């Protein structure tokens, strides 16, 4: 038993006689399938327990396909961990419980132990009236209670494994207890069922409700999906109904069913009335809570904006007042602040950097800061940065620096990036210069712009007149021959003009 550490999940096998229950169970327990089938048939003669067991497993245990599908999209539900948790390998204690439970007797409720994740689902339709179903529900409730406070009492016992085991083991234990009681009754021992069932119902109901409360707190009230909340409400209602029914049966003693039903009806009516009266208050309270929370979020946002404005805009305004004499400084400060604020207001957090347009913009900002002339950047299209594009950026930076230094006034930068090539145009409105008249020892234009572009397979053209100077940088894509060709044609066409 204890050696079977890696136990396969309990699923209905495709190797089937009827529904694949026995072979699935055999796979799960590691027993020969023949014995399981034989045991099942024998159990059928024990008051039809085998039939009930088989039918229950048939409905509750998924087929292998369904199980795979469910595992593929398992929801992370904080409310119902027992249902949604992956079937972890049951070992040691769990396995022992299973075998004992199976040996102990063919009570219908026995498989609650091994089937783990299935048992809680069975608690749903409970409360009908048959002792087996009531047993199942009370068993689940008892297990839950144990789990609820078991966090401290059984902590040492289960400390080396997940707490869900405790839940399942205790569920099995409770079901065993039920089976034992039933067997004792068979042998004529007088068991006060009239007291036990209502007590179990109360215990179970309270456990369901309390566990819900505890889990809610654990998950945190704020981040829960609606589905979880709905499930929580259902469980709360189920717990409440169980407790009310249990209390009523207990109070009315061994009273008749008609009496109990009447009392149940009356109490439901009373509860409904109370809910009706309290509902508006509850809703108002909830709304107030929401309003307050929204207000707090707004307040936080406002504080953040205020802090940012203080650090940036107010400081800049103070600087501007102190430097009011220098027009150049004022313009530079205002431009830098405008750019910073714009970036803060309109930047897209999701947009990743490292693209060419962003690089060009940051270079332009740098030039603007150092020379105090506005650099207007317009970009069309974008591309990833490569080493060659870095060279393009450096050449463009040099051109911008020249334009800001010698041109004066606004510098216009236009970046156009298509699949075939990338082009950058840097234009100023300065007095212009004669490229041939630039001394050989001035490396700026010849080396940093033209030479750099040529080395990386690009082109650089400079046109200058008395209206201003324009530097055109072109960089064809490496792996776009057609685009390059088209681009060359375009450039030739441009040259003709």
């Amino acid at each position, binding site marked *: 038993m204890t050696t079977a550490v890696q136990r396969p999940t309990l699923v209905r096998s495709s190797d089937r006689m009827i529904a694949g229950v026995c072979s699935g169970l055999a796979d799960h327990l590691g027993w020969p399938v023949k014995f399981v089938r034989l045991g099942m048939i024998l159990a059928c003669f024990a008051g039809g327990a085998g039939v009930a067991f088989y039918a229950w497993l048939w409905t509750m245990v998924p087929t292998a396909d369904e199980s795979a599908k469910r595992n593929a999209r398992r929801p992370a539900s904080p409310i119902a961990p027992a249902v949604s948790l992956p079937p972890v390998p049951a070992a040691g204690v769990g396995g022992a419980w299973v075998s004992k439970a199976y040996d102990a007797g063919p009570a219908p409720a026995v498989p609650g132990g091994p089937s783990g994740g299935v048992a809680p689902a069975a608690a749903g339709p409970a409360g009908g009236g048959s002792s087996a179903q009531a047993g199942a529900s009370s068993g689940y409730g008892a297990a839950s209670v144990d789990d609820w406070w078991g966090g401290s009492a059984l902590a040492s016992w289960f400390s080396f494994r997940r707490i869900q085991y405790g839940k399942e083991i205790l569920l099995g234990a409770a079901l065993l207890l039920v089976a034992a009681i039933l067997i004792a009754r068979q042998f004529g021992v007088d068991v006060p069922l009239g007291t036990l069932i209502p007590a179990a119902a109360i215990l179970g109901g309270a456990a369901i409700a309390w566990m819900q409360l505890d889990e809610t707190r654990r998950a945190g009230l704020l981040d829960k999906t609606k589905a979880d909340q709905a499930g929580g409400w259902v469980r709360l209602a189920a717990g409440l109904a169980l407790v009310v029914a249990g209390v009523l049966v207990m109070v009315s003693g061994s009273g008749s069913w008609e009496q109990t039903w009447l009392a149940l009806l009356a109490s439901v009516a009373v509860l409904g009335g109370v809910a009706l009266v309290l509902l508006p208050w509850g809703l108002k309270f909830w709304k107030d809570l929401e309003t307050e929370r929204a207000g707090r979020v707004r307040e936080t946002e406002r504080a953040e904006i205020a802090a940012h404005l203080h650090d940036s805009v107010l400081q800049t305004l103070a600087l501007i007042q102190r430097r009011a004499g220098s027009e150049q400084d004022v313009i530079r400060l205002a431009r830098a602040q405008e750019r910073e604020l714009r970036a803060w207001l*309109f930047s897209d957090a999701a947009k990743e950097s490292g693209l060419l347009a962003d690089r060009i913009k940051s270079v332009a900002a740098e030039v603007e800061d150092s020379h105090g002339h506005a650099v*207007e950047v*317009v970009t069309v299209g974008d591309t990833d940065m490569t080493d060659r594009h870095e060279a393009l950026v450096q050449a463009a930076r040099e051109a911008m620096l020249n334009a800001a230094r010698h041109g004066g006034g606004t510098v*216009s930068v*236009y970046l*156009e990036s298509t699949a075939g090539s990338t082009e950058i*145009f840097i*234009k100023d409105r300065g007095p212009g210069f004669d490229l041939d008249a630039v001394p050989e020892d001035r490396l700026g234009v010849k080396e940093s712009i033209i030479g750099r572009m040529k080395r990386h397979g690009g082109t650089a053209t400079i046109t200058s007149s008395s209206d201003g100077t324009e530097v055109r940088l072109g960089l064809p894509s490496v792996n776009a021959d057609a685009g390059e060709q088209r681009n060359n044609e375009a450039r030739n066409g441009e040259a003709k*003009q």
Partner: protein
Amino acid sequence: MTINPDTGAGRTVRVVIVDDHTIFRSGLKADLDARMHVVGEAGTVEEAIAVIAGTRPEVVLLDVHLPGGLGGGGREVIAGSAALLGTTSFLALSVSDAAEDVVSVIRAGARGYVTKTISGKEISDAVIRVADGDAVFSPRLAGFVLDAFGTAPADIADDELDRLSARELEVMRLIARGYSYKEVAKELFISIKTVETHVSAVLRKLQLSSRHELTKWAAERRLL
């Protein structure tokens, strides 16, 4: 599109300034030169619609972001003055470079867009140009157009609204590069009038095109 051949020949252009900042309005008023006369000012959407209907100016300098109304800002003012679009032209002003602000006000019917950092001379020229029925494109708006329509020229089979012609693309590229209309004309060996015709054609396409890519582009930038 009304063409006033007598603009600049002693006649003044009647202008309404719509902006919610009083300081900016007075500064702009001082910047406009003698060729134009400010006949009204407004600070909210409702005021603007009332003032424009009352004074019937030739040009409205319209801030994109305005309080009041349904929150539509400058776009809403243009929509509210739709009956006057034949005689009144709108020139959008904005501190925002965001594409959604600029393109939405252009598509609502504005004849052009300039940033608020523009100099006094430039804004005066822009007002005259709009009064003459032409379009005013800033480099940035030209960039948006190239981005939206793509940089490949139109095939003959294409719907003419959906793409820019090769010549229009050239004009847009030069404007995006910072060329003035005069410089564009010189560069392409065409007259300024022809440049203005091309620009107006692009503006019309930007306003009317329902091109798939343009719609997608606009949707990505939350313009629709």
